[in-house]
């Protein structure tokens, strides 16, 4: 117990240091651009936490990337890289809009459940295809999931300029869904919708499934050592396909709640969403723990809301904050600060220090 708490403490300390370091680099860039970094960060923090509305916005931004982070995490537990969350989100959105536009007369809760089921199913199938290719044809899932993102995006474009095009105007987008069918708002005066609760429930269910069920254990066993798992009679290919189906379904739900709760229609550029890649970042930042992913998604949601305010008030572009985000991920993935701390404590080897300086110079 004692040692594990120490370990978590050490981890938190390293995470905090990585984040601090990334913000210092960001401050340098802001200063180079001729602004006062402290003032800018002050506005950023105020923009993130300043009002209930802003926190609501942060939650809205956090929901889809948290779902995608969970999706990437789940596949990764079975040692499958799901880089296709982006495409699976697209199918979730298509499923949701099909249900919401065609079954208007049903009561709202039934429409929501159906929309999420259909969206999850479509996303799951889209995710399962690369899973099947990997399991039975040995095709690298990284490349197939990426290619399928572009295909999903193209098909979405074809759908909203063709069969699903709005009945009124001429824009490449679907009709709006009825006001009554929109997901309920959690906090008055904000856009934070029911999806926030859904993502927390999903995270909890996934945690339970992976930690406390036999099926989850088998899935993780395949991820940790496929040949050992197959010696114990666990089917490797079946678990790979299953993990990608569930991962795709989770990403699909992200698309559903984004359409039902925020956008209310599918536009032709929805396929260019960055949720899938953000999801990878969240899975990395959250250290593949469902609750870690929730926290990092909320953190990024807050950061981005603050960045928007900063851009409006000070002319400092949001791309500075994008860079800070990227650096946080880089530092955490390379465990840079840990290395740095270790070097502080022990007298450094000449070689190691040189590598550190080189890394630092390039990061800046």
């Amino acid at each position, binding site marked *: 117990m004692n040692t594990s708490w120490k370990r978590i403490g050490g981890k938190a300390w390293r995470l905090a240091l990585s984040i601090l370091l990334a913000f210092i680099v960001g401050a340098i860039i802001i200063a180079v651009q001729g602004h006062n970094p402290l003032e800018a960060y002050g506005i950023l923090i105020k923009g993130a936490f300043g009002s209930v509305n802003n926190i609501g916005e942060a939650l809205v931004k956090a929901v889809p990337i948290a779902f995608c982070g969970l999706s990437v995490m789940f596949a990764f537990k079975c040692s499958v890289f799901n880089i296709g969350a982006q495409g699976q989100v697209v199918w979730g959105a298509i499923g949701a809009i099909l249900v919401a536009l065609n079954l208007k007369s049903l009561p709202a809760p039934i429409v929501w459940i159906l929309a999420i089921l259909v969206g999850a199913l479509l996303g799951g199938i889209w995710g399962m295809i690369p899973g099947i290719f990997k399991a039975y044809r040995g095709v690298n899932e990284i490349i197939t999931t990426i290619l399928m993102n572009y295909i999903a995006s193209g098909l979405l474009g074809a759908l909203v300029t063709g069969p699903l095009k709005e009945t009124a105007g001429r824009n490449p987008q679907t009709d709006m869904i009825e006001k009554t069918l929109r997901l309920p708002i959690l906090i008055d005066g904000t856009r934070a919708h029911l999806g926030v609760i859904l993502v927390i429930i999903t995270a909890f269910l996934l945690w339970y499934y992976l930690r406390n069920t036999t099926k989850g254990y088998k899935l993780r066993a395949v991820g940790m050592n496929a040949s050992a798992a197959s010696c114990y009679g666990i089917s490797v290919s079946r678990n790979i396909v299953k993990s990608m189906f569930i991962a795709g379904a989770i990403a699909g739900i992200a698309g559903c709640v984004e359409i039902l709760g925020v956008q209310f229609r599918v536009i032709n550029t929805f396929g260019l969403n960055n949720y899938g890649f953000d999801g990878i970042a969240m899975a990395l930042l959250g250290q593949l723990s469902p609750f870690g992913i929730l926290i990092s998604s909320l953190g990024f949601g807050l950061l981005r809301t603050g960045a928007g305010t900063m851009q409006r008030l000070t002319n400092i572009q949001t791309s500075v904050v994008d860079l800070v985000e990227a650096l946080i991920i880089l530092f955490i993935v390379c465990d840079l600060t840990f290395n740095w701390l270790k070097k502080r404590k022990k007298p450094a080897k000449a070689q190691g220090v040189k590598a550190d300086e*080189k890394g630092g110079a390039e990061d800046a």
Partner: protein
Amino acid sequence: MLDQILTVSFFSTLIAATVRMATPLLLTGLGELYSERSGMINIGLEGLMTMGAICSVIVTSMTGSAFVGILAAMVAGIACNMIFAWATIKRLSHQIIMGMVINILAASIATLLNRSYFGIQQMPTAVEGLQNVAIPLLSKIPIIGEALFNQNILVYVAYLLVPITWYLLFRTKPGLKLRSVGENPKAADSMGISIPKYRLLGCTICGALSGLSGAFLAIGYMSRYVENIVSGRGFIAFAAVIFGRWNPKGVLLATLLFGFADALQMRIQSISPDVNAEIMVIVPYLVTLIALVFFIRKGDGPAANGINYSRSK
């Protein structure tokens, strides 16, 4: 529509477009070939190309010389890939994850550079791009002459690199050592071959060629930098290496196939606007996917591809 297709000019432009569209894929694909042959599977190609593209445009616009722009793109590609090399060779970070991080990082750096140099604008600023160089006599051959021998310098470089790469990898001592590091690092290490050195070499070449490829897109093809300029070409190049069975000739054929699919969809769109444009865009990706799923044998790559090496393990 068919009578529009069956003309000499259609085929001539189609061949020219194929050659042009395949060029960035070929440059990046050959770079990745060096990298993977040394055991470094790098999925950050997209990011390296983006860095090459933005740096070539900025430096070209600063100096007025496209040649300096090309050099800058190569330096940028190498510098960015050194982060990858350092993290994976030295810190033993997971190669795929690190590649994704490079993509995220490079995209944000490129956007930042673009917006702080050119500002946020409706139309991206054009720069003086590369001129086409017609090769005397050869460019006068009917139909294919104009298409193959009146291109810009980077196109020729890309295609010349195919035999050069084959020679370097399969007929020289350093090439053999680089491949042995990718096949069996432990054996190579026991022979006194430095694993980090050769993997670093693979990464350097990969960075340089990917940067060059980005420069081709930015100053050789578009004459400007637009956001999301690479739009998946890095990933297609990555697929081309797998589809091309990790040898230069295969990479060439694979990239020509993808280039052809891309060129065809653009030509068809331009002569018949009633075809749904969105559905045509997916053709190259679909061709790549089908090619990968149905025409690939399992386990052809370098044995230690993607596996970090440390003596203590």
